[in-house]
């Protein structure tokens, strides 16, 4: 289900290394690609996602900006209008907020309001999510705000291979793409990743594990949590199909509905707050289009309607874990 090309050569990579590799390839392949943001140049990013790129491609194509998110996104919009491919980094997704005016008022609208005379092939990368005990506002999951904004795409990978293939697709996409990277996954998983350019299309979900009893729908940092819960359920004789959405916009409703029609049960998992989240959209789609297949109501496993807590001692209460997902799986089985 992943890359279309045969995997000839591979190298073991963490997710952050795979992202660095994708950026490297994009810079090498296309002189219009420019990378910028806070600390992305000399330092190579606070998570090292842009490590070494300024040394390789120069300070014109990989550069540090002043500390101003509205400026970063707004300038990127102008660069995109004028023919470059801006790849901006927002240091943490929780610091995207000063730029939201540029995103909501402009980034998502330019194609529409110029009748496609102009378009914005811009990528905004941002580390998101919790699980690593960061200070206040460093663990936010604002993906639903973006998914709710017409005209912007939203991508959230969960593995190194996916991160690379999806990022290359995002950079080569003609439209603006938000690319959220789960901080928890940056260095915690390693796998063999194909070297060289390969693409994973936006809008194609990945079936992580197959099963006949329950569908667990998740993305980003929640995929490994769902996998753990699925493995536990499996040993109790419950077949769990875990679906990694990979992209929220465009959304692969077909894979979701096919699976739910097979299993008749759905659990949706996210670490974002509960009310008004993207998980609610998925639940609504299932309710609209597959209700007659359901043996139980859809269950959402989410964060809470409170700011993400920076309290190390109880942070893990907020972020869904395998136990909570397993409980939801039992709940839909026993309904």
């Amino acid at each position, binding site marked *: 289900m992943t890359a279309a090309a045969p995997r000839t050569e591979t190298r073991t990579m963490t997710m952050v290394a795979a992202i660095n590799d994708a950026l490297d390839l994009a810079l090498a392949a296309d002189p219009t690609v420019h990378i910028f943001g806070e600390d992305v140049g000399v330092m190579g990013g606070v998570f090292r996602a842009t490590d070494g790129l300024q040394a390789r491609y120069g300070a014109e194509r990989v550069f*540090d900006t002043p500390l101003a998110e*509205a400026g970063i996104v707004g300038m990127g919009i102008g660069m995109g209008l004028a023919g470059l491919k801006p790849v901006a980094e927002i240091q943490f997704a929780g610091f995207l907020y000063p730029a939201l005016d540029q995103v909501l008022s402009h980034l998502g609208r330019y194609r529409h309001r110029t009748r496609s005379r102009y378009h914005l092939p811009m990528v905004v990368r941002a580390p998101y999510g919790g699980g690593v005990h960061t*200070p206040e506002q460093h663990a936010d999951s604002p993906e639903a705000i973006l998914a709710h904004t017409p005209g912007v795409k939203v991508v959230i990978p969960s593995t190194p291979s996916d991160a690379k293939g999806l990022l290359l697709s995002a950079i080569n996409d003609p439209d603006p793409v938000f690319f959220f990277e789960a901080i928890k996954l940056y260095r915690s998983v390693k796998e063999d990743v194909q070297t060289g350019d390969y693409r994973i299309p936006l809008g194609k979900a990945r079936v992580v594990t197959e099963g006949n009893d329950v569908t667990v729908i998740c993305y980003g940092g929640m995929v490994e949590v769902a996998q753990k819960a699925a493995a536990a359920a499996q040993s109790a004789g419950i077949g769990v199909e875990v679906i990694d959405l990979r992209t929220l916009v465009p959304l692969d409703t077909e894979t979701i509905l096919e699976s739910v029609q097979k299993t008749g049960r759905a659990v949706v998992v996210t670490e974002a707050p509960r009310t008004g989240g993207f998980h609610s959209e998925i639940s609504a789609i299932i309710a609209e289009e597959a209700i007659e297949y359901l043996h139980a109501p859809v269950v959402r496993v989410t964060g*809470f*309607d409170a700011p993400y807590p920076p309290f190390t001692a109880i942070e893990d209460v907020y972020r869904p874990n395998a136990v909570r997902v397993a409980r939801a799986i039992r709940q839909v089985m026993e309904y």
Partner: protein
Amino acid sequence: MFQLLTPEGTATGAAELPDPETRLRLYREMRRARHFDDRGWVLYRQGRLGVFPPFGGMEASQCGTAAALTADDWLFPTYRDTGAALTLGLPIARALAYWRTSPHGWAMPENLKVLPFYIPIATQYPHAVGAALAEKRKGTRNVAMAYIGDGGSSEGDFHEALNFAGALDAPCVFILQNNGWAISVPTRSQTRATNLSRRAEGYGIPGVRVDGNDVLATYHVTREAVERARNGGGPTLIETVTYRVKPHTVADDPSRYRTEEDNAGWDAKDPVLRLRTHLLAEGLMTEASEAALLKEVADEFEAALQEADGYPEPTPAEILDHVFAEPTPQLARQRAQILAEENA
């Protein structure tokens, strides 16, 4: 650049020197701040404090400015301004609690108008304007003071705040701590401006540039700005020129982005030692009275540490506290869920 004490500790401009008692107070405040910073590192290494942004070397910039306020004024500190908050009176135990990621570090004392350290950059600057304006509308003489970094002064909120404050004549004092770096980005890459205090001109308000390692100078210019604001003279921007001798946070590795040359000379400008030389030379302090002061400062810290150690850990349902005055039905359900799962 305004200065009252040379790096060698020689006083210039005698007319503007604060009285001896104030000079000793400023020394004490800087020593308390430095002690927090030094012990903070050790506690971090021992796993007894979380990641925190050190401010050692910036004591004059923080303590001298905050010392110009009274407890009736407002303070809007960034994450790096533990020294300023302690000077206004934030209990050490609360500051420790904040950097221990305990909710007890968020509960600010009732007798102070100091806000929890702001993590997002610049976004609190307009709040200071609003607080200042509110004090004016209420007819008090209280002012609001907000801190920001050289990097933070690139954000739109910084500029909007300065413009609002000028246009609305808000009794506000803006402290811009120019410590040379925004994580890895030196000020020269942050902006083409070489004198950040002159940004004030663009908003029609006074801008002052002061040696940020000279506590007598920072105190003097901030007091003037505070007095002007109290007397209806409007806002001021003060740029304190200093240096972040330490890493961005205790977990940061500055060798990736700066050289020994960058750091050269800054240790010799140490603000604490500068005032120390002066106080000893003037006979305002003896080695013996200093030793007693240092012991007092250390004892105070250890007592605060014990107090902080005594704060109970938060309980799971606390993540839902204080979202609204009355929990919404959704929050009530979520609380029930947490409690049920706890007992499951």
